[in-house]
């Protein structure tokens, strides 16, 4: 065992990378759930985004184009869900689960041709002298642009929900669709927009895994990240800031356990591999249990079918 080989600075720096896909997927799902829709298909939308982004980046040689198409792919998957649940009034839980299975299958099929290929590298942002600051420079200012994009997105969603009229309407629709309808807000289009946004975010998260974090294509490579994103939204009590916290926790433990595995810690590898999932859930459960009535912060219409009765 050689714990000395673990470099804390490198650890924290790679934590930010490991957390980014979760942040993206979770912040998208947060918006969806705030509008009162429960989309359990995050995993399926992520993996769809992963293969879309990978394929497009490989064919075109442009990672930026890959990410753009990944967002589109995720949004398209989400809109299938939206069509089924919002217009055809299907059950959201069952439809979301089906979306996950569908996404895993489709991505495996499309991905056949892309096994064992290396995608074009995503450029790092040159932060100039900032990157040269000792310790902090390596932790904060030495990443690819998606890391900062994800952080900016969290800040934007937080501000949108808290300060803008659009955010207020979105929350209102999630709080009582009947009341919102009675006041003349168009519940279904608003929800479709939220669903599409959630899909696009999940797609970006997936592409981040296949283009940057791994980077190559293997079947089912999101490995439950979508489910963790879903859990983080719930235990973060639907707050953008806590989503960030949960994602970093998960990312941090993922990176740490990989390092511990490499260092040869005398614990079964399986236990180490499951630890990020277990610890993240445990910590978030304790946090949401400590502030009583956390369940009360769930959008009141979450998962409920809206049918305009006029």
């Amino acid at each position, binding site marked *: 065992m050689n714990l000395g080989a673990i470099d804390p600075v490198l650890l924290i720096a790679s934590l930010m990378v490991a957390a980014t896909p979760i942040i993206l997927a979770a912040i998208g799902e947060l918006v969806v759930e705030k509008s009162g829709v429960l989309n359990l298909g995050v995993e399926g939308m992520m993996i769809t985004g992963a293969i879309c982004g990978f394929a497009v980046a490989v064919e075109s040689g442009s990672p930026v184009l890959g990410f753009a198409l990944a967002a589109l792919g995720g949004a398209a998957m989400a809109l299938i869900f939206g069509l089924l649940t919002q217009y055809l009034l299907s059950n959201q839980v069952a439809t979301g689960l089906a979306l996950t299975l569908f996404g895993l299958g489709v991505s495996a099929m499309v991905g056949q041709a892309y096994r064992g290929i290396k995608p074009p590298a995503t450029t790092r942002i040159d932060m100039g002298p900032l990157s040269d600051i000792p310790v902090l420079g390596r932790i904060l200012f030495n990443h690819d642009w998606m890391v900062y994009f994800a952080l900016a997105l969290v800040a934007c969603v937080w501000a949108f929900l808290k300060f803008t*009229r659009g955010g*207020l*309407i979105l*929350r*209102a629709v999630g*709080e*009582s669709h*009947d*009341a*919102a309808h*009675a*006041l*003349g*807000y168009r519940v279904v289009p608003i929800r479709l927009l939220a669903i599409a946004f959630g899909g696009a975010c999940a797609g970006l998260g997936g592409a981040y895994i296949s283009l940057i974090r791994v980077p190559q294509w293997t079947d089912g490579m999101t490995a439950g990240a979508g489910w963790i994103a879903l859990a983080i939204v719930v235990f973060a009590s639907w707050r953008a800031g806590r989503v960030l916290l949960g994602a970093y926790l998960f990312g941090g433990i993922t990176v740490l356990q990989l390092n511990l595995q490499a260092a040869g810690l005398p614990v079964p590898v399986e236990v180490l591999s499951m630890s990020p999932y277990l610890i993240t859930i445990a910590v978030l459960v304790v946090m949401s249990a400590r502030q009583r*009535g956390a369940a*009360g*912060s769930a*959008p*009141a219409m979450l998962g409920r079918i809206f049918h305009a009765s*006029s």
Partner: protein
Amino acid sequence: MNETAPLLRIEGLTKAYPGVVANSDVGFDLHAGKVHALLGENGAGKSTLVKMIYGLVRPDSGTMSLRGTPYAPVNPNAARAAGVAMVFQHFSLFDALDVAENISLGMDNPPPRRTLSARIREVSEAYGLPLDPTRRVGELSAGERQRIEIIRCLLQDPKLLIMDEPTSVLTPQEVDILFRTLRQLSAEGTAILYISHKLEEIRALCDGATVLRLGKVVANCTPAEKSASELAELMVGQTLHAPSREGTEVGDTVLTVKGLSMAAPHAFGTSLKDITLDLRAGEVLGIGGVAGNGQDELLAALSGEAPTARDAVTLNGAPIGHLGPNARRALGLLSAPEERLGHAAAPDMSLTENAMLTASQRKHLAHRGFLNWAAARRFAQTVIERFDVRTPGPGHAARSLSGGNLQKFVIGREILQDPGVLVVNQPTWGVDASAAAAIRQALLDLAAKGAAVIVISQDLDELMEVSDRFCAMNEGRLSPARPAEGLSVEEIGLMLGGAHDMEVAHVAH
């Protein structure tokens, strides 16, 4: 504006839904500065009519004109832009948002939050409806919630204000305040369309009335010139009988509640605080109070849904506080909760299945764990016949029945199980006048046969009609019971905890 030209003229408005004509050739005029009542039983088409005026529903045919120009709102925003505002019967409010956010959502071009909060304070004080813009709506009383809706309308300076059954959840004092506000508004030139089936209110407030029955206008009248029973007959189309009661012997105490306290079951619930009551065989105890003051929680504690301390509830001397609903049913304590769909009945199950759900023990509809469906169907059929439930048969889903019919079924199902004690919450809520009279009569008949009945209701007229003794619930506390006979409306209002310091605001006028 010309005094004689109507503000809103409605002509030949017709709207049909599959299988039912909600409005057929409806027409009347509304004048600025007048309060006009729209009267009718449930299902008479009042709600559909106002939804058409407010742009939520498009009429099949007919025209409306506002100030002489054609008026056909495509959505509520268009209606609001034309100066039409509406206060809904079921409040269109968002519990988790605060007052200012709720008001802002109902406006088309809301000012920035700070200006809006100042405007809310200003308008609420001008009309004697104090309201704090930063409070969360989920914490407010029904009266305060209604103030939000009214102020939301007033901020848009409406020409026509539609109010859909505004007083059904208010205390008498709150009703007084509302009426003062409405009179002030009409004196300022606003036309008010007032929907209610409380006839005395309409006689006191309204300048004119249109009576709807089965979607058609059956009368136009001046309410002050008619008696309440004449108006009721216009609405129902037949003569109504007030429930009658024979003097019954009050027997021994059957149900005792002593020092019952219970924490609120959820964030917007009410905790019960030290509730004590005695109930004797053959009497009806009425429990009044504004919604959300612990009535639902009290029913849950009595029915066994929320078990309490063993000795807090005793039935015929035996402690039953720790028992669940089925054990209590076996002992003769039955209940019918307020919410028909989802609490008192399972909406998607048939009437037979719903009968099985509560009556399987007392009517022996199950044998060694196997269900006797034939007996359940017979029992459901009996309920349907005895309580005049209008449905094609016991095989139909509970959801397919109208509110009044389902309520008759739910109450009938419990009464026919021969309860020793029956607890009902809002037995006639949303039920039309003739069905309500039938339900009250059934409750009185049950008491006359020696059962003890607790009626929890917000309808004070109903409580005065059926109760032997009356007590009030306020913020989870129950007042001592008083004989119902000779109790005045003012005394009841004070028992209910009244108007939440709203009087103060009116002193300024």
